[in-house]
Structure formats: C-alpha cells, structure tokens
C-alpha cells in the first residue's frame, strides 16, 4: 500500500515557473496584438491617403469648400497661434536674459531669441497648437458626420467625400500652417522685445536689427515651410481618424482625442527628422 505522500503526483514545473511562463505568453500576445494594430492602422491610413490622392486629381476641385476651410483652419486659429507665439517670445526673453548676462553676452539676446523662435520654437509651438485646435476639430466634426450618416448622405448624392471633406481640409492645413507660423514668429519677436524693453529700454528697430544679424533667407525659409509638412500630418490624421469613427458619440470623443494625440506625436517626430534634413540641405 502506498503512503498518502507517494500518491500525490509530482509536478514537473514549480508554480512560479508556470506563472512566469503564463505571464510571458500573455505579454508576448499583447505585444504582437499591439504590433498588428499598429500595422493595421498604418495600412488603413495608406489606403485613405490613396483614396484622397485619387479624388484630388479629378474635377470639380472644390474651390468654395477649400476657401471655407482656409477661413475655418487659418483665420480662426490665428489668435491662438499668435498668443502662443507671444507667450513663448516673452518667456524666452525673460529666461535667457539672466543666463546671457551671467556670461557677459547680453547683447546676444535679440539674435538668440530670433534664432530660437524662427528655427524651432515658432514652428513647433504653432504645429502643436494647431494640432490641438484643428486636429481635434476635424476629428470631432468628421466623426460626428460619420456616426450621423452625413458622410453617407454626401456620398449618396454623388459627391466624393474624400475630396469634399478630406482633401479640402488637408490642403487648407498645408497652406495655413506656414502663415500661422509667420504670425507666431512675429508675435514671439515682438513680445520678446517688449519683455526686454521692460527691463532695459531698447527701440524695436534696433532689437530687430541685432536679432537678424547673420541670419540668411534660408534660415527663415526652411523652418517655416517645414510646417507645411506639419499641416499635412494634422490634416491627414484628423480626417482619417474622423472618417473612420465607429461607435456613436463615444467614438466621436475617441476620434477627437486620438486625432490630437497621434498628430502631436507625428509632428514632434517629423520635426526631429526635418531638422536633420534642413541641417543637411541648408547648412
């Protein structure tokens, strides 16, 4: 007769090993699911972009709707872009002054401010501000149109929604971002001067003269037009997220949020890549 101890089957693995194995399996599965979702999203985005490009080359070219979107995306974003530029200029001027004074380079303040705003701060801040205002707006508007069948109604009336809704918004974003960046840059320099003048009065003319010493046209052109790429990203992702909305009002909220989050991430990523390009082509 066997003792009770000998009847207990012996485990081939310890409980800890089984737990670890199960955790590893579920982590691997989650990772692969994430990769799949990511690739699926990119594939869908590619198909969407292809549909928009195909629609774009066919008549009619939706001039009236494009003008409406230029106003909606450009004019209505101007105050917030200008305000953001002004705030950045003011803060940069105040913050960098003390450092430059410490190193005896106070006279470099206008040049440092202008260089910083035109090269990096102005374009990126404008891009991110427009991501928030326009990206969310496009995502929510098109998402709402999708769940209430308005996009289907447009299609049913023989109008291509990829052209009427998406292409016009994307082009408006591409055209308006550089102009908004110029406005933000101007406000940044202006408020940088105001901040400097509050501490040590200097004429705006002199401030600008000192600021643009050694600056060439390419210093100004490439970073500003970099924002056209930001516009392409914001418009495309906003339209894509909006037009692929599912699940009613909750889906609309999700589209608005994801439009802002994804386009902001891509704007930052594009900024890093484009800065490298600009340094290569406009040394």
């Amino acid at each position, binding site marked *: 007769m066997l003792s009770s101890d000998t009847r207990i089957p012996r485990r081939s693995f310890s409980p800890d090993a089984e737990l670890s194995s199960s955790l590893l399996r579920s982590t691997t599965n989650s990772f692969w699911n994430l990769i799949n979702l990511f690739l699926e999203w990119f594939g869908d985005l590619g198909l969407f972009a292809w549909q928009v490009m195909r629609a774009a080359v066919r008549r009619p070219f939706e001039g009236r709707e494009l003008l409406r979107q230029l106003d909606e995306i450009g004019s209505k974003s101007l105050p917030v872009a200008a305000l953001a530029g002004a705030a950045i200029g003011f803060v940069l001027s105040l913050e960098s002054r003390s450092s430059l004074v410490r190193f005896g380079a106070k006279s470099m303040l206008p040049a440092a401010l202008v260089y910083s705003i035109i090269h990096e701060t102005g374009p990126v801040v404008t891009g991110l501000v427009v991501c928030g205002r326009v990206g969310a707006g496009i995502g929510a508007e098109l998402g709402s149109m999708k769940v209430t*069948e*308005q996009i289907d*109604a447009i299609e*049913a*009336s*023989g109008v*291509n929604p990829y052209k009427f809704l998406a292409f016009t918004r994307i082009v408006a974003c591409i055209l308006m971002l550089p102009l908004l960046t110029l406005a933000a840059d101007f406000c940044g320099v202006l408020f940088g001067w105001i901040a400097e003048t509050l501490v040590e009065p200097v004429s705006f003319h002199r401030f600008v003269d000192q600021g643009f010493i050694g600056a060439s046209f390419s210093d100004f052109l490439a970073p500003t037009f970099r924002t056209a790429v930001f516009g392409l990203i914001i418009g495309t992702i906003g339209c894509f997220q909006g037009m692929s909305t599912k699940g009613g009002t909750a889906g609309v909220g999700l589209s608005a949020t994801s439009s802002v989050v994804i386009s902001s991430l891509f704007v930052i990523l594009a900024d890093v890549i484009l800065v490298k390009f600009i340094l290569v082509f406009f040394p």
Partner: protein
Amino acid sequence: MMHPEQDVLLAPEENDVTTAIDSSGGKSDGPAVVLRGLHKSFGSQVVLNGMDLTVESGETLAVLGRSGTGKSVLLKLIIGLQKPDSGSILIHEQEVTGLPLDALNEIRKKMGFLFQHAALYDSLTVEQNVAFPLQRHTKMTPSEQSTRVKELLASVGMEDDLNKMPSDLSGGMQKRVGLARALSLKPTILLLDEPTAGLDPITSGEIDELILKLQEEHGTASIVVTHDLHSAKTIADRIALLHEGKVLLDGTFKELEKSSDKFVLEFLKRDS
C-alpha cells in the same frame, strides 16, 4: 448601344435639372431596379442570402422584415454605399456592381435617399441642405436654385423654415427636409429608410400623405423600408417581406394578409 434613358442618366450636368427628366416624370418602360442573387455578409453574419427583387418604374415597394434582416443594407447596396459579396444590381437596366466611382456617381444622381435619421448636414441651414445637390450637379444660377429650393420646401410644408439649422427642427421636420433634399435632382428612384420611424402617429400619417402626394407628382419608383405596417399599406403598391436573407413574400398587402405562412402570420399578429 445606349438606352435613351441612360443617356439622360449619364449626363445630368449637360442638362438643367428641370429638363433632365423626361416628360413622363422619370417613368420608363423597363424595371427601375432589378436585384439578382444578392449576397451580403458581415463577418459570420449572413444578412442577404441570394435575394431576388424587381421594382418597376413608377411603382412603390415596401420592404418589411424583422430588425437586422438587412432592409437598410439593401438600400445601401442599391445606392452603392456598400458592395454586395456577390449578385447583380441593375438600375434602369445598367449593372452597377463594380462600376468605377465616377460612373456610379452619375447613377446616384438619379436616386434620392432619405436616411432613417434624415442625415441633414448640421453645419448648413435647411435651404443650404436642399440646395447642396443642386449646387453640385446642375448649372442653375443662384436665383434658379433658390426658386427650386423654395418649391421643394413648399411641397413638403417647410417653406417658412429656410434659415433654420437642422438642430432647431423636430424629427418629423427633419424627415420632411430630408425628403425635399432627396427630391431635389428629380430622381427616378427614391429610397426611403424608415420614413416614419420614431414619429408620432399623426406626423407619420402626414409623412405618408406627403410620400403619396410626391409619388403622384413625380412618378418615381420608390423602395420604402419600414416597420410600420399601416404606413406600408397606405403608400405601397407591393410588399416584399424579408426573412432569413431572402424575399419570403412578394405581393400586394392583401396577399400578405391572406398568407398562411407561419412567419407572416406571426409578423402580422405582432402588429395588430
């Protein structure tokens, strides 16, 4: 060889909308819509399973059936918003499955679609909603468009609400504006997705009367998806009852009432 009716169908921009339809109000001798062996599935869920249906020009067909039997999907397949898995859809004797988008859009201009919740463009006024198809597909001047929009809105009893936004309208009013928009290009085929759903009996009756009146005036072929048996009896020449992805019964309302089929009896009993 192109059918004379198709000639009108494929070139509406060449014509003013008022001349795009022949004098018979869009009626032609052949069937307006022919569906053959239509299959449509969503994943593992089979919605249409080899469906056959014909709608003659000038005829009103009511499509009945339980929820989820593919009635709304059927309308979306006809207008090309969804693609069938297999089968054939002929609009005025022209095959539309697999048509390139430009050609499909030309066909769509000859069809009016009233969505279940009207689907009015919420950033546009009532007037702009009805004018939208006219601006896109006709060469009408703004004053001609305005006259046409006012005519259409008067025909649905909404002529005093030109400048209202869709959010300011009740469900019944939205359906009326949706109907006016669906009729703006003088379609030869009208697709109505639950025109009386969610409306009180009096407003439903008004919408039914409106559909009958417009039917008399325009003579379009209409496919009306509805759960409202009373409405179907009032407006339809013929009834198609969908069950398990196929047409279970195709006939007049009297034939439906006389049917001894178990499902038909249950369907009618529920409503009564």
